[in-house]
């Protein structure tokens, strides 16, 4: 055997033995509390119900909705394309497997904000990225998207445009159609021409 092989092999063995005696330098991937606090204050984690509706209608492939309510609630109703991960199961391996999907924006939602926010904080502490929350949750979605209130006539054009968009989204999600008032047919119209009275001509 060549001498150089023996030397190289012993270098590897010595370096390997060295590792045993080095103090294990464990740093966790939890994000520091200051960073988490900043992110909590920034409010960039929220996705509005309007934006979500738009992305679902456009079938945006980067949307991954995650329903953090109980399985019972989720069985009753889930948003299209959502996965149910109840908050208590968030840390299980099969739940964490969902977050390994590349190129996805993970949007948590619950009935309100609270459960989704808890899921968001836990997942951020696990070092996961691209996490969002549906602002106001399903309740606010019903209020804004499914049953939008018409704006007052005095409101600016933006409010009216938003209302129109919400009406459209409502149709998309519920399948209802906008009521269009059809004019009532007119009755028989008497089209007989009136006979002109002969004007008295002449005279003095």
């Amino acid at each position, binding site marked *: 055997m060549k001498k150089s092989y023996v030397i190289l*092999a012993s270098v*590897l*063995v010595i*370096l*390997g*033995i*060295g*590792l*045993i*005696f*080095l*103090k*294990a*330098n464990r*740093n*966790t*991937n939890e994000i520091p509390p200051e960073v988490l606090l900043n992110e909590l204050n920034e409010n960039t984690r929220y996705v509005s119900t309007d934006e979500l509706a738009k992305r679902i209608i456009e079938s945006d492939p980067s949307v991954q909705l995650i329903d953090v309510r109980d399985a019972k609630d989720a069985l009753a109703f889930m948003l299209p394309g959502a996965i149910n991960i109840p908050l208590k199961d968030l840390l299980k*391996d*099969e739940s*964490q*497997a969902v977050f*390994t999907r590349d190129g996805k924006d993970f949007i948590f939602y619950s009935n309100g904000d609270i459960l989704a926010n808890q899921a968001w904080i836990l997942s951020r502490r696990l*070092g996961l990225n691209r996490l969002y929350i549906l602002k106001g949750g399903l309740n606010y979605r019903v209020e804004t998207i499914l049953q939008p209130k018409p704006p007052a006539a005095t409101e600016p054009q933006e409010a009216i445009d938003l209302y129109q968009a919400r009406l459209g989204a409502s149709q998309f999600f519920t399948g209802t159609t906008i009521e269009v008032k059809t004019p009532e047919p007119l009755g028989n119209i008497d089209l007989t021409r009136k006979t002109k009275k002969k004007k008295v001509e002449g005279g003095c």
Partner: protein
Amino acid sequence: MGPLIPSNIIDPSWNNVIALLVGVAFGFILESSGFSSSRKLAGVFYGYDFVVLKVFFTAAITAALGLYYFQYLGWINMSLVYINPTYVASTIVGGVIMGLGFIMGGYCPGTSYCAAGIGKIDAIVFSVAMLFGILIFSEFYPLLEGFYNSGFLGNVTVYEVLGLPVGWFMIILIVVALGAFFVTSLIQDKVKEVDY
């Protein structure tokens, strides 16, 4: 300090540029070490050339040693280093399929592009066939999805699964590698030399 991109020392938009440069360097070194020859690569299965085993095993233990020493010196934060998720069942089946392709075609995916780059016809056929295989897999993905995601263990490392400290695992790996190098060189001496 490191890894440089996840720690925002280098902007993430440099990702593809750096990947390209590393890829060019990797391809150049593969080619200049003779890894563009399908006979040399297939030699590991027939026992006349174990250079594939030696090179990749050495690369793995050198890189692992380097990473853990860097971590000790505080040059790299290992918790930010991406670890591929492990899916046991699909990895085993995928490994068998890839091994069969390797024996039949004489290339693994990286070396096939490397050899296609210098104009080897067998490598060009192999690369095109590989793309065809990817197409078939993608088309059947809805059927295979359940199996594809089965046996998920998370982003784990071997020593975590075995419950060993890193140091002990590394020394075992080094001894296994050196043993493999020694045994394969004995086999190589016994097998008739192949001229290629």
